[in-house]
C-alpha cells in the first residue's frame, strides 16, 4: 500500500478506540516498513487530565513509592494547572517493555495520531536501541522492580515507623544526583535479580539468626596503623563518586533496611540517568519520527488537509526556538535543536553541498538517511551527538554564538565565537560540553574515611573554572549525608592545583538516626 491512497483514518476531532487502533496500525506500517524502526511492544493508555497530574508527580511512572516530595510536586503542578499558567503535556511515555504511552482524553484525533507517532514509535525506538538505555536500564524489569520497591517501603513503614523511613528517604533523595554509576561496571543491571536477592538475604538472615552469637566474644580487631592509607582506600573502593552506593556499602551504622532504601533510590536514579543525557536526541528522534509519519499519512490520504494543518500548527509550536533576547527564551529547546539536527542530517545524507562533504565526509551523500539516522540514534548521547553532527549550516541558521563570562574581566561578557568560519568548531565544542552531564553536575567524590579512627567522611568537590557549590543547598545536603553516615562529614572544594577553596562540615543531627 506504499503509493495507493488509504482512506481517511478519522474525520473531525472525535476519536474512539477503533480510530486509535486504525491510526496505530497505519503508523506502525510506516514506522516499520519505511523508517525501519525496531520497537518494544506498545501499550497505549487513555487517561484523564487529573491522572496526568498524578503521573507527573511520580516522575511519570505508573507506580511509585510514597513520599511527601511527590505530593509537593503534585500540589505545585496542580496549582499551576488550575490557574491556567501551564498546560499539560500531551503525552508521557515510559521506558519499559511493553512501552507505555499515556494519551490524554482531551486530545483531538489529530493530536492522538501525533502522540502515537511521537511516543509509541519515536521514543519507543530510541529507548530500545540507544546504547545508554541498553546499558543502564532494564526495561523488562523496571515496573516489577518499582512494585517491589513500593511494597518494600510500605513494609518498612509498618515495621520501623513512617518517620524513620521518611527521614532516610529524604536524605537519599538529596543525594540522588550523586547516586549513579557513570561508568559501566562488570555486569548489566538486572532489577529482577536484585529483587530476588533482597528476598533471599532476608530469608537467610532469619534462618540463621541465633541470639547466642551476640554473646560470643570477638577477637581484637586490627588497629588503624596496621592498615596503610592506600590499603584502606582500596578496601573501601575509594575514591567513589557514587555517594549513595558508598553509603549503602560502607556506612557503619545503617540498618539493613536503610541500605535497601538507599539501593532503591540509587536504582531509580540510575534508571533515569540516560534520560538526562539524551534529552536532545530523544526528543529529536521522536519529533523527527512523528513528522515523517504524519507527513506520510497525509500523502497517503489518511489525514485530511485540515487535520494536517492542525498537526503542523502544534508541530511548529513544539519546535519553536525563541532567540536569546526573547522573553520566552529559556535555553535551547531540545525538541527544536534535536529536530533541526535530524533534518539537517537527512539533508546531508541525501543532498550534501561542498561544505557538508568537507565536514561530514563519512555520511555526506551516502544516500540512505534512515540507516544513518538509526545508526546515530543507537550510538550517541547528546554530548557526542552535538559534538559530531552540529553542522555549520545549522549554526548559521540558528545564529548560534558563544559568550564567555569571566568575572575577572570587568568590562563585561565577551563574545567568544559566532557562527563563522573561525567559530564553528568552538561553538560546537562548547555546546556539546553544556550537554555533558559529567560537566554540568559538580564532580564530587568520597575520598577518605578513617573507619578505625574518628570515622570522619571526607569528600572532595573538584572545582572547575572557580565555580563553587551553592552554599545553602550544599549545607542541607551535607546535613543529610552526615545523618546517614552518623559521624562527621567534611566536604572540601578543591581546585585543580590542589588548593582548597572552601570547606563545609556537618555533624549528624541525632547520632542514633540509624537506630531510630
Amino acid at each position, binding site marked *: 500500500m506504499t503509493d495507493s491512497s488509504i482512506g481517511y483514518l478519522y474525520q473531525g476531532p472525535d476519536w474512539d*478506540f477503533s480510530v*486509535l487502533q486504525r491510526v*496505530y496500525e497505519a503508523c506502525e506500517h510506516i514506522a516499520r516498513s519505511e523508517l525501519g524502526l525496531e520497537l518494544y511492544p*506498545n*501499550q497505549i*493508555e*487513555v*487517561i484523564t487530565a*487529573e*491522572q496526568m497530574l*498524578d503521573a507527573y*508527580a*511520580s516522575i511519570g511512572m505508573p507506580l511509585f513509592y*510514597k513520599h*511527601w*516530595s511527590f*505530593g509537593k510536586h*503534585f500540589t*505545585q503542578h*496542580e*496549582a499551576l494547572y*488550575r490557574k491556567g499558567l501551564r498546560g499539560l503535556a500531551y503525552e508521557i511515555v515510559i521506558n519499559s517493555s511493553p512501552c507505555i504511552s499515556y494519551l490524554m*482524553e482531551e486530545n483531538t484525533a489529530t493530536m492522538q495520531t501525533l502522540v502515537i507517532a511521537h511516543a509509541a514509535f519515536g521514543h519507543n525506538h530510541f529507548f530500545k536501541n540507544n546504547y545508554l538505555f541498553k546499558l543502564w536500564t532494564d526495561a523488562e524489569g523496571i515496573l516489577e522492580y518499582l512494585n517491589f520497591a513500593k511494597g518494600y517501603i510500605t513494609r518498612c513503614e509498618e515495621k520501623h515507623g513512617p518517620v524513620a523511613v521518611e527521614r532516610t528517604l529524604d536524605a537519599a533523595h*538529596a*543525594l540522588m*544526583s*550523586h547516586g549513579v554509576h557513570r561508568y559501566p561496571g562488570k555486569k548489566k543491571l538486572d532489577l529482577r535479580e536484585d529483587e530476588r536477592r533482597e528476598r533471599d538475604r532476608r530469608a537467610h538472615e532469619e534462618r540463621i539468626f541465633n541470639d547466642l552469637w551476640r554473646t560470643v566474644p570477638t577477637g581484637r580487631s586490627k588497629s588503624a596503623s596496621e592498615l596503610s592509607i592506600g590499603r584502606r582506600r582500596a578496601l573501601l573502593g575509594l575514591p567513589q563518586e557514587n555517594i549513595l552506593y558508598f553509603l549503602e556499602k560502607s556506612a557503619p551504622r545503617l540498618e539493613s533496611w536503610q541500605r535497601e532504601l538507599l539501593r532503591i533510590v540509587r536504582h531509580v536514579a540510575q534508571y533515569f540517568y540516560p534520560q538526562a543525557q539524551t534529552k536532545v536526541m530523544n526528543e529529536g528522534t521522536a519529533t523527527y519520527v512523528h513528522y515523517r509519519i504524519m507527513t506520510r499519512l497525509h500523502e497517503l490520504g489518511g489525514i485530511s488537509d485540515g487535520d494536517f494543518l492542525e498537526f503542523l500548527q502544534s508541530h511548529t509550536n513544539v519546535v519553536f526556538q525563541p*532567540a*536569546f*533576547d526573547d522573553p520566552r527564551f529559556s535555553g535551547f529547546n531540545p525538541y527544536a535543536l534535536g529536530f533541526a539536527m535530524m533534518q539537517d542530517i537527512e539533508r546531508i545524507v541525501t543532498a550534501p553541498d561542498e561544505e557538508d562533504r568537507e565536514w561530514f565526509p563519512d555520511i555526506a551523500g551516502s544516500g540512505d538517511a534512515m540507516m544513518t539516522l538509526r545508526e546515530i540514534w543507537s550510538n550517541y548521547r547528546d554530548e557526542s551527538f552535538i559534538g559530531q553532527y552540529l553542522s555549520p549550516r545549522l549554526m548559521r541558521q540558528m545564529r*548560534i*554564538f*558563544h*559568550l564567555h*563570562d*569571566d*568575572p575577572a*574581566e570587568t*568590562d563585561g*561578557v*565577551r*563574545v567568544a*565565537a*559566532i557562527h563563522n568560519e*573561525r*567559530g564553528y568548531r568552538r561553538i560546537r565544542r*562548547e555546546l556539546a560540553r*553544556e550537554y555533558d552531564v559529567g560537566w554540568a553536575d*559538580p564532580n*564530587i567524590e568520597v575520598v577518605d574515611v578513617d573507619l578505625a579512627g574518628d570515622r570522619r567522611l571526607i569528600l572532595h568537590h573538584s572545582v572547575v*573554572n*572557580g*565555580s*563553587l*557549590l*551553592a552554599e545553602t*543547598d*550544599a549545607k542541607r*545536603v551535607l546535613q*543529610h549525608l552526615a545523618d546517614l553516615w552518623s559521624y562527621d562529614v567534611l566536604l572540601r572544594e578543591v581546585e585543580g592545583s590542589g588548593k582548597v577553596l572552601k570547606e563545609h562540615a556537618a555533624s549528624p543531627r541525632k547520632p542514633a538516626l540509624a537506630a531510630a
Partner: protein
Amino acid sequence: MHIVDRRLNPSSKSLENRQRFLRRAKALVRRAVRDCTRGRDIPDILEGGEVSVPLDGVDEPRLHRGSGGIRDHVLPGNKEFVEGDILPRASGRKGKPRDAGEGDAEDAFRFVLTREEFLDVFLDDLELPDLAKRRLTATEHESVRRAGYAVSGSPANIAVNRTMRIAMARRIALRRPRPQAIEQLYAEFDECEDEERREALKVQIAALEAKARRIPYIDPIDIRYRRFESSPKTVAQAVMFCLMDVSGSMSEHMKDLAKRFYMLLYIFLTRRYRHVEIVFIRHTERAEEVDEETFFRSPATGGTLVSSALEAMRRIVAERYRPQDWNIYAAQASDGDNSYADGAVTGRLLKDAILPVTQFFAYLEVGEANEHRTGMPDSPLWSVYERLRVEGQQLSMRKVSNRGEIFPVFHELFQRRRGQERVAP
C-alpha cells in the same frame, strides 16, 4: 499493541502523597491559614483556598553549583555581535541569560487547599469541651460489613476460594476418582495383552468414570456466597441553641458579630458531630423560635427580658432534646441590656435549668465597633453572669466589639486544654 482505558481507574493516586506533604508542612500551613483567614469573611472560609508557605522544611536540596566562576553560554539568535565584542553586564544579574535554576531555592510555594483540608487545619487545635456524652443513638447511618458466608446469594458475591475449598473437601471425602487415575488405567489398558486383565480393566474404568460422573467436580451445594450485613451505626448528635437579643438596642453591627460567632460554632460542631441541629431563639421581652432568615434579618422591637429566651430554651429542650441523647451547646449574644427586675430570674433559670443540661454555654457580649468598654461599668446581664461564674458555674463569657476579634475569641474559647481544666475566662 494494547489500548487500555484508564480513565475509570481511581484518579487521585497522589492523594496520599499530598497528605504526607501537608502533614510535613503542617506548622507552616497552619500559620499560612491563620494569616489568610484574618482578612476573610466566614462564608469564604468554608471555601478553602490558596495559601502560600515558605519553603523551609519542605525543600529538597541538591548539590549544584552556585553562581560565580567562569561561565560559558552558547545561545541562539545572534543578531549583531561579532567575535571579540564586549557586552556590559546587566546590573543585578537581571537579563543575564540562563539564569534559570541558579540561586539556592525558591522563596515561597503557593498552592490550593481543598475545603476539607482547609477546615482541618483551621480548626485543628480546637476542641469541644465536654465530649463525654457520646452514647447517642440516631441511627441515620447504615454501614455494610462482611458477615461470613452464605449458601445463597447473588452470583456477583460468589466466594470462589471458599467454594473451591468445599468442593475439594467433598471430592476427597466421596473419593471421586482423579482424572489422572483414569488416564493411568487407560494407558494400562492400551498396553495390556492379557484378555482377562483387559476385561477387568474395562470394568474398572467404566466404574470409575461412572463414579466421576456421579460426583461432580463442583456441586451446587459447594457454592458459597460472601454474606454482607448492614449494621446500624450510632451517631453522636448535637444541638446548638442560638439565643439573641433583637431588641431595638441591638444594631446591625452587633448582629453581624453574633452571626459570625454562630457560624464558626456551627462549622466547628459539624466537624465533630455528624448530626447537628440548630435552634434559633430570638427575644425581646418575649422569646420565640424562628428560622435563620428571620433570626438574622427581620427586625423586632420591644423591651428586653433575657429570662424569656432561657425559658423558651428550657421548654424546647424538655420537648425535643432529651439531655441524655443530645449534646447541647448554647451561645447567647446580647448587648448586655436587661431589665433589672429580670436579673434574678435569669440567674436562677440559667443555674437551675440550663447549665446542668448543656455541654457548653457561651455568652458573647457584643458592642459597637471601636467601642472601648474598659472603664465602663459592666452591663446588667454581664454582672449577673459574672456572679454565677464566680460561684463556680461552668459558663464562658467574652466581650467582642470588632469583627477581627471574633476568631481569636472563638479560638480562645475552644482551645485544646489539658486535663479537666474548664473553659473559663
